[in-house]
């Protein structure tokens, strides 16, 4: 454990709003009083999501492939690492005795067998054949206790303009992208060799719901959705750079069967505190869509923070106030430039009975560091994945170096 360093003092000053910060946290991470962060794995490349087995084994997905990790001598550090499989992507989850993973075109699974760290069994295909896209292509997914598979199929577009990201180009109406993208499709996660055509269109109007999670206690699906970019450069007569940096909320919703969450026709304007018609669809920076057509988000987080993972806390380690609440890993912005980038942090959203019960709190901060030139490339770390350990600790994965931290409550 490192003692208080100059770096931590600087981080504390920057964090400012975090009133009670931990003295002991690796990498100068800033946490609420009573919590400790330790580095479990220094980094093996670009990480994405992660999952922890009941025996504590850690599975990390990434653009460089899958990695299995074990802490054999229980000193809090990984001391056995095995790369395995041939899937490069974002999602990884454990369901029964299977490790479910995804890349940009499909969802697959590997058998988890006792004694094996990296699965030795053959990869099986659960669903494959999603069109290969560039934008918002990660097929993140959630699984409910029956094995129902909810796949996020992000829209390969910013706002469904006739010409993507081109100044002044108007929106296609109706947006044809929504036929195959921009929503959630449901499959039977216990069946093999399905195609996208086997999926049921569950919800729509979601630009990219990377952070998607089944809430077992509430028996409901939730997601935090990446909001749109570039209202200022695309519609400079309506919005300026400060508007673009601050107004398009990252929307947290309960995702219901048949739900429509408003993309690309609208977005939640956090300045006005209401849903507005997107400029591509005749919006004038305040015009509202038809009343009741789209739901109000449970919470709208600041623009461009990039919610990349969602986890409902159900462990035994954290204090009572965290039970049932949501942790959200925000990857941090790029489209806020030239304004200062923001959002490289893990947030806690207090919740009761599946509804927000208080203001969100910054839970873990200090990942990005100084970030020279205001460029995300220079962030020290970017939180991207969350997982719950069998002992109730919260694990956080980073996309810059593939670092993994374990955050636990250590006050006696």
């Amino acid at each position, binding site marked *: 454990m490192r003692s208080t360093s100059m770096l931590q003092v600087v981080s504390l000053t920057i964090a400012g709003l975090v009133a009670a910060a931990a003295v002991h946290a690796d990498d100068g991470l800033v946490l609420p009083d009573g919590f400790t962060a330790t580095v479990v794995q220094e980094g093996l490349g670009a990480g994405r999501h992660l999952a922890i087995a009941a025996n504590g084994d850690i599975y990390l997905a990434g653009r460089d492939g899958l990695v299995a990790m074990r802490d054999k001598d229980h000193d809090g550090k990984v001391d056995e690492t095995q790369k395995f499989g041939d899937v490069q992507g974002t999602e990884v989850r454990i369901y029964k005795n299977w490790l479910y993973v995804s890349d940009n075109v499909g969802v697959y699974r590997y058998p988890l067998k006792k004694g094996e760290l990296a699965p030795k069994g053959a990869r099986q295909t659960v669903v494959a054949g999603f069109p290969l896209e560039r934008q*918002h292509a990660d097929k993140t997914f959630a699984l409910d206790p029956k094995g129902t598979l909810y796949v996020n199929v992000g829209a390969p577009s910013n706002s469904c303009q006739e010409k993507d990201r081109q100044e002044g180009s108007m929106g296609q109406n109706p947006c044809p992208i929504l036929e195959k993208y921009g929503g959630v499709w449901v499959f039977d996660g216990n069946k093999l060799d399905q195609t996208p055509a086997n999926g049921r269109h569950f919800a729509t109007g979601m630009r990219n719901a990377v952070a998607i999670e089944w809430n077992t206690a509430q028996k409901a699906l939730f997601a935090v959705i990446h909001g749109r970019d570039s209202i*200022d450069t695309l519609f*400079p007569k309506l919005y300026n750079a400060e508007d673009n940096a601050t107004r398009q909320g990252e929307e947290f919703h309960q995702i219901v069967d048949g739900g429509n969450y408003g993309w690309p026709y609208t977005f939640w304007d956090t300045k006005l505190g209401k849903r507005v018609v997107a400029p591509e669809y005749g919006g004038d920076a305040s015009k509202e869509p038809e009343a009741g057509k789209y739901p109000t988000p449970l919470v709208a987080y600041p623009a461009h923070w990039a919610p990349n993972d969602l986890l409902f806390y159900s462990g035994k380690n954290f204090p009572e106030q965290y039970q049932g609440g949501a942790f959200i890993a925000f990857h941090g912005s790029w*489209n806020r430039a030239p304004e*200062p980038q923001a959002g490289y942090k893990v947030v806690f959203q207090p919740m009761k009975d599946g509804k927000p019960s208080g203001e969100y709190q910054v839970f873990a901060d200090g990942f990005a560091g100084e970030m*020279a*030139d205001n*460029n995300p*490339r220079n962030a020290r770390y970017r939180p991207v994945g969350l997982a719950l350990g069998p002992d109730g600790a919260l694990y956080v994965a980073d996309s810059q170096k593939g670092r993994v931290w374990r955050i636990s409550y250590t006050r006696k």
Partner: protein
Amino acid sequence: MHRRVTLIACGAVLAAAGALRAEPPAAAPPASTSAAAPPASPTAAAPTEDPGKRLYARHCLSCHQADGGGVPNMQPAIAGGIWVKGDPGALASFVLTGGFDSAQRKDSAVDNVMPPFAQLSDEDLAAILTYIRQKFGGGASAVDVAQVAAARAKIPR
């Protein structure tokens, strides 16, 4: 934020683009930003600023970033790359028509495609391209209005 206070008349963009060739690159942007001194938004930028820098901020910066470094996996870096160091006409043609960043312009490791910027005037494009070549291309030659016009004339309609 450093801001140049040289007076350049609003209407004289053409002349300014030419004049830039004789000038050193504009002062570097701040190495880092803090909440205490947020950079001004491009729409709020003074008209006296280097027009290439101002127009880069308005049209290009949010994707390619202030340092020209791009955003990993999203938009490519332009700083130090072939486009800002190479043939001015090829650069003008690329920015007018958009597309991906590889030399073949067929594929790219990044997610987002660059939209065409044909809606900008030859003068504005010349100012932007001159700015990025001087700032990110190791002082590569300026792009003049005639080169942009020639590139535009070659685009199939």
